[in-house]
């Protein structure tokens, strides 16, 4: 094994030029020394990480360690939180996403998000998926829009279950179906990166298995970051795992290494269920 992969990387100094990742993938998302405050409370303390392309990266760590906070930095969802201040640098395909001239709406199309609780709009299944492409002007005609909706539902593995009821409300679907509808909605605008914050925590084991299977298929075409409290889920779906503790990135590495042989005691304590 390449020794550099298993080891936690140390934080670089702020503003230093980004280094080429040691990981043998392109890394569309690169974060350096990201610090987040909510008012006077500091939630992240200099997080630096590269997210590899077309693979699943899992963020794990105890409640309140800043996983969601960091995830939200990647598509600037924190902008919507009053008093939240983000410093440091995050690049998407080499461009600084906190550049003031950047179009945030466009950023969120490129970096989609799926939340813990499925949150379909109170609209039809069709409209849930069609909404994004419409506002981004991705379809020039009704048939082009139909095509986007159909293919997104197919990619989300939902097509067979909803093809005969596209005009029924999305909120009438089961929890697992709603979550896949939200994934279809994220896919519809053609993102490069999909962020998922505990996407299965409200789902039963069968619906969870279906969503995990879907995540595994989606990584062929998308870069996925998933926050999860289930160690087993992180071990099953991700190729890279990052462990956060008290606002710091403690350790990152190949998922199999993190779960069989973590380097840091804090990681070990957390994933084995020990008192840290």
């Amino acid at each position, binding site marked *: 094994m390449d020794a550099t992969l298993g080891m936690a990387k140390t934080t670089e100094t702020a503003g230093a030029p980004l280094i080429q990742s040691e990981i043998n993938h392109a890394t569309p998302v690169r974060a350096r020394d990201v610090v987040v405050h909510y008012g006077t409370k500091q939630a992240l303390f200099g997080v630096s990480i590269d997210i590899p392309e077309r693979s699943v990266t899992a963020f794990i760590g105890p409640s309140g360690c800043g996983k969601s906070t960091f995830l939200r930095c990647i598509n600037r969802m924190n902008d919507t939180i009053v008093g939240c201040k983000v410093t440091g640098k995050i690049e998407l395909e080499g461009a600084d996403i906190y550049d003031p001239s950047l179009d945030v709406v466009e950023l969120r199309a490129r970096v989609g998000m799926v939340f813990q609780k499925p949150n379909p709009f109170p609209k039809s299944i069709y409209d849930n998926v069609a909404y994004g492409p419409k506002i981004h002007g991705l379809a020039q005609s009704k048939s082009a829009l139909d095509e986007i909706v159909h293919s997104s539902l197919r990619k989300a593995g939902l097509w067979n279950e909803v093809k005969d009821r596209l005009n029924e409300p999305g909120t009438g679907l089961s929890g697992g179906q709603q979550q896949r509808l939200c994934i279809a909605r994220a896919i519809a605008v053609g993102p490069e990166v999909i962020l998922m914050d505990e996407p299965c925590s409200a789902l039963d084991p069968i619906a969870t298995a279906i969503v995990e299977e879907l995540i595994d298929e989606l990584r062929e075409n998308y870069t996925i970051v998933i926050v999860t409290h289930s*160690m087993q889920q992180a071990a099953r779906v991700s190729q890279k795992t990052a462990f956060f503790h008290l606002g710091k990135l403690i350790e990152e590495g190949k998922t199999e290494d993190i779960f*069989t*042989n973590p380097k840091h005691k804090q*990681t*070990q304590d957390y*994933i*084995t*269920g*020990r*008192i840290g």
Partner: protein
Amino acid sequence: MPATLNEHIVTSYEDELIDLNKSISEMGGMVEQAITEGAMALLKLDHVQAQNVRTFDAQIDQMQQRINDSVVSIIARRQPMAADLRMVVTAIQVANDLERTGDMAKQLAKRTLQLENLGLAPKFYNGVKHMKDLVSRQLQAALDAYLTRDSKAAVEVCNHDDEIDAIYNSLFRELLTYMMEDPRNITQCTHLLFCAKSLERVGDHATNIAEAAYYLETGRHLGADEQQRAPR
């Protein structure tokens, strides 16, 4: 449990892992005893002791079953991770090596029963006895390394494996000489040669246990960390 790890939040889980470690320790003790008694039976041609070793083997097999059952149950209910995962996986491996070692003790006992009426010269036994002592030491050291999570001691055990092979080879030549000296020695010496082979296998199992101990503590395979091993 090693001192470096904190306790589990779920104490019953902690207890299960401690019990598993104890079971390995207990099984290890049983197998060490079986090898010692099997060899003693052989060296003294003690029929009764040989029979005891043979029946004792069933208890060793049961112990392995128990260890496997508790590992399966821990995996199903606790989904162990990291050091815990390595512990349960190596427990299965070590229990397997111990069971096979127990079989070797049984082989020694069987040979004892076959050698009984042959009235052997003591000089034939010296090499076997020497080999048994070395093998027992290796087995004990490997088990200690496993139970105390001592990867350095585990590497030591692996580095000594060559000595057993060397003794086996010289014993092989020695017994061959006796056979050539007098063809009437052939039957007894062949039996002893098989015993030596059994002991040599015990040495291999000891090495396996030491490798498991190394993996348990470090999370790395000794084969991949070749620089740890003494140059040959």
